């Protein structure tokens, strides 16, 4: 009896693709934790001006290098202490979340859009155009990414906007290569031939017929792109080539922390923790997405 029941259950309609994806994604504990942390950061970033106890720029002259609340001499006015000019660390971190997420969103949007366009067109058209684009991408990949970003910032001048642009250019080749590779495999399939026979034009074939079937690896790469973007932007900020003071960017906050390493560990520790956990969260979520979107890995 119970056997026939279970058989009946199995033969029921297949799950909606999104439901199936969610089921696989939830099985991966790490991915779920990462996803929840991302939601938390997004919430903090959106609500920054309501949550933050102080302005990120306000300097409390009588509370310079105050330790965190739980230590001797700390007060709950400044839960995570203050920095060298008396700004509240917690408020700066909260507003920094906004910047880091913004960097991630803009970088990934620019490079994903440009990468899809270049990758799909070069994969579909082929010939000289493809060779030229791919050679260019190879050159960009041959350079260490931070070095290339630094070269671009040298040209454009140091600022957060230019750092964003530089990082978008640096991670572009990954998207171009991924998009091109999937287009080449998809292009030869029957459904594409079928729509071509039906009279679909090149643009329709590229962006309406083929593109949706190439999205899975691109989505995964985009999630992982967030972590690269946040890390690189922080690194550029740390080197003084990204966000300029007094902008509360996490990397830039660390830039002058080196002088206080002996006296004020909290100035050094918290911005780094924020970068570290955000990057881990995006990496976990990206790995989880890869596992649940890749049909080959499904059991």
């Amino acid at each position, binding site marked *: 009896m119970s056997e026939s029941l279970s058989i009946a259950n199995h033969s029921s309609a297949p799950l909606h693709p999104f439901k199936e994806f969610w089921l696989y994604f939830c099985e991966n504990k*790490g991915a779920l934790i990462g996803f929840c942390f991302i939601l938390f950061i997004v919430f903090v970033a959106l609500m920054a001006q309501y949550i933050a106890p102080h302005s990120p720029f306000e300097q409390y002259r009588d509370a310079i290098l105050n330790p965190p609340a739980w230590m001797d001499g700390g007060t709950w006015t400044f839960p995570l202490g203050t920095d060298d000019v008396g700004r509240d660390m917690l408020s700066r971190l909260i507003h920094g979340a906004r910047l880091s997420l913004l960097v991630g969103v803009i970088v990934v949007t620019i490079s994903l859009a440009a990468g899809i366009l270049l990758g799909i067109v070069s994969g579909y058209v082929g010939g000289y155009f493809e060779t030229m684009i791919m*050679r*260019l991408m*190879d*050159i960009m990949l*041959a*350079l*260490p*990414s*931070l*070095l290339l970003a*630094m*070269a671009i*910032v*040298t*040209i*454009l*001048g140091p600022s957060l906007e230019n750092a964003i642009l530089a990082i978008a250019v640096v991670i572009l080749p990954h998207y171009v290569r991924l998009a091109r590779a999937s287009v080449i495999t998809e292009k030869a399939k029957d459904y594409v031939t079928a729509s071509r026979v039906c009279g679909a034009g090149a643009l329709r074939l590229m962006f309406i017929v083929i593109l949706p079937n190439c999205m899975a690896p691109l989505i995964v790469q985009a999630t992982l792109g967030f*972590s690269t973007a946040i*890390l690189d932007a*922080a*690194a550029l900020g*740390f*080197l*003084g*080539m990204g966000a300029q003071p007094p902008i509360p960017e996490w*990397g830039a906050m*660390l830039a002058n*922390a*080196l002088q206080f*390493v*002996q006296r004020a*560990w909290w100035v*050094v*520790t918290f*911005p*780094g923790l924020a*970068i*570290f956990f955000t*990057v*881990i969260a995006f*990496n*976990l979520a990206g*790995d989880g997405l890869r596992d649940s979107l890749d049909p080959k890995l499904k059991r």
Partner: protein
Amino acid sequence: MIKFLLRRIAMIIPTFIGMTLLTFALIHLVPGDPVELIAGERGITPARHAVLRSELGLDKPLLVQYGNYIWGIFHGNLGKSIVTKQPVFKEFMTLFPATMELSFFAMIFAVTLGLPAGIIAGVKRGTFFDHSVMGLSLAGYSMPIFWWGLLLILFFSVFLGWTPVSGRLSALFWIDADTGFMLIDALKSDEKGTFVSAMRHLILPSIVLGTIPLAVIARMTRSAMLEVLTEDYVRTARAKGLSPLRVIMVHALRNALIPVITVIGLQTGVLLAGAILTETIFAWPGVGKWIVESINRRDYPAVQGGILLISSLVILVNLAVDMLYGVVNPRIRHNK
């Protein structure tokens, strides 16, 4: 095999040309007049302006400038630094051994820890050890290494006082920079304690720089081991009654190492990029710190030369890795 090598070598030529175009364009893409940017806000007399322009070769037609640039590169002449007036190539070469020493030890740290960790994690799949290695490796490649460096300084140098905070050698010692490799120079010097001091200065920077390669190598070794362990020849070796150790170390590891070698080689680029950050934190007098300083000082010839030299190095190492791959993996040799 020779055909494979020739094709691979031919492929780096356009890459190299692209690189020279990029570094050449660097100074021309800067919005505004590079000479005025170099001069800064204080301004510059028209006469000095003209001298600087001709010193940088900016008064000639663009094509001639590029021709001169390429001509210079092939003669080892990358121009002179605006700040120190030294030839860029010479400056790079005096600083490069410091970066090489640091990268070498970072790589040793990464490989000696990463390989065994990856092998054991792969063999003991699903155990606590496996999960810890995977978790730590995720943490490793999510690590902002400039922060990691600060944390290690905070703990080991400030709190415990075990290691020095920065530099390559304690100020108590003075030795002649003979080879540029501090450890070798220290061994050659007669003063006692120099070698130990140099070694102590190397520890933290090597760990910081080696962290990301360590994470990548451990992960890669583990997945390569997992793949190889399901192969038929491993089962055959087991069925023959070989000891588990021999099966893993000889039959499985040899084949698993092929992709791992590539990954180790490809970490060179990561190391050189990481050296930029690591050297800045530890005030390590290598090419990474030099490039950062040159960018901040708007010393364009130095930036151009530095980027060109480092990227050429990465290209050459990648080429060497590909060739090594052909040697290690017979399948590649015979296919192409």
